[in-house]
């Protein structure tokens, strides 16, 4: 009897332990894998966000000059010629120019620049001029706003 009891007890203990161990391992592995996946996801989001914000922080540009133009090239129409200078250490990409005064407001993207440039990117310490067709109003305070691909915004005001 005792021999039979000992055999049964030893076997159930092993099985129970094995089952517990297996369950712990399975659950633990699952949890660690899930935590790792989450961590990697957060890390990649942090990488992307941090790089984006750092690049935005390092982006430096000025609107060097704004002049009314009696004709933007290839259109012969009145316009506004904006010269943008990259004073920072990173390349910038001009995506949008908004010109507005008390009577009107227009926003121009790359396709609206005259002539359509091959690239709207500006290397560090370089300048580029963009002409947009705009009916300049003499005597009105005109605001010119330049937006880059990283959503950096600079603006200036001129009046003629």
């Amino acid at each position: 009897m005792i021999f039979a009891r000992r055999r049964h007890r030893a076997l159930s203990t092993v099985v129970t332990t094995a089952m517990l161990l297996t369950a712990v391992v399975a659950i633990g592995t699952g949890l660690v894998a899930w935590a790792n996946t989450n961590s990697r996801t957060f890390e990649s989001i942090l990488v992307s966000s941090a790089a984006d914000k750092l690049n935005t922080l390092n982006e430096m540009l000025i609107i060097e000059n704004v002049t009314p133009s009696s004709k933007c090239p290839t259109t012969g129409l009145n316009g506004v010629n904006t010269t943008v200078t990259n004073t920072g250490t990173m390349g910038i990409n001009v995506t949008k120019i908004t010109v507005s005064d008390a009577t009107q407001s227009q926003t121009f993207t790359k396709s609206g620049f005259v002539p359509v440039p091959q690239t709207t990117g500006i290397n560090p310490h370089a300048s580029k001029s963009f002409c947009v067709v705009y009916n300049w109003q003499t005597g009105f305070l005109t605001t010119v706003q330049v937006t880059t691909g990283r959503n950096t915004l600079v603006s200036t005001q001129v009046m003629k």
Partner: protein
Amino acid sequence: MKSRRGLSSVVGAVFAIIALSTVIGYITYSMDVLNNYNQSVLIRTQQMIDIANEKSQVTSVSYVNNKFSIIVNNTGSLPINFTKIWITNKTAACTTYSCNINYVPNQVVVPGKGITLGQNMAGTLNTGKPYHIKLVTSRGNTSEFDVNSVGSAPVNIQLYALPSNVTNGYTTGLVMIVKNNGSGTLTNIVPSQPLAGAGVANYVLSANPIPPSYNILLPGSTAVFNWNATMTGKAGDFRTFTASLQNGFAGNTASTTVHVGTVSSVASAPLNIQLLALPVTVPNGFKSELVMVVTNNMSGTLTDIAPNALPTTSPGLTYTGSGTASCVAGSVSPAKLTLAPGSTGVFSWDVTATGEGADSCTYTITQPLQGGYSQTVSAKMTITVVSLSSTTFAQNAG
């Protein structure tokens, strides 16, 4: 039993290590990202500080060979690299690309030094047009000013004739005062020759003003130009002059009128004459100033009036007190004056007074001006003696 218990601990420890490693790795990476961000902020802050420390001042602008000669001084603590100069023709109808000249001077100026910009630009300029100039540096700072832009807005112009009433054949001075009451710097201020307008008096105007121009006029500052105008005509004739600036704002002028007046005589009537001792009390051996103030209260100009010599004895010069007083006058200054109607002139003498305390000398003049009307004026100066305070030291006896 013991070996099985040990196995679960190992499994748990492995999981713990994996979890901890992941957490530590993530935290380390986050710290690194934060460190990069801090570095970027510091760099950006330093760039902004550099931008603020970059300072320059335009000290002179002129035309040389029909190009600008702009002298800029570096008044900051960092070298400045001028990367672009924009020259915009401000004429209202000028909107073509040629009205906006820009070129790269590619010149660096160190702190404390100056540099001349503008001479290397291609082409030439129309010096009669107003221009707006913008200097751009590598850090993005800009310095803007206008050249000969007196035409963009009226400035404060005044024109005076000093005196406004002159006798036939005499010269008056036309003084034009230009004040920059705007917020921008005006450059190359050049007056036009005053135009003669209404009136029949003849005149001879000096060919050029003195000075001929001002290179630069800062906000709030004033430029003064002078011409001489010799007037001829009979009493009552006049001539109006109008002054303006070259390329000035339309209608921005100032006028004044010069009258050819009569000449009055100092002998014809008493004038407003005062004789003053300044100061009234003078220490022994020091100088006081005897001042004769003459106001022309006549209708005509008094020309070349001169005072009579001061008396040196009684009754013109009298003393009171100890009897040792003495007042000795020097020569008069100025020797003669011309006074327009209503104007005031001053003759003065230095008088050295000596004597004892409370002594006085009194000047009494019955005909102050040479050939003038008899009228009595007097002034008294009192002599004082200044004694220094003394200190008596106690002495030990024996």
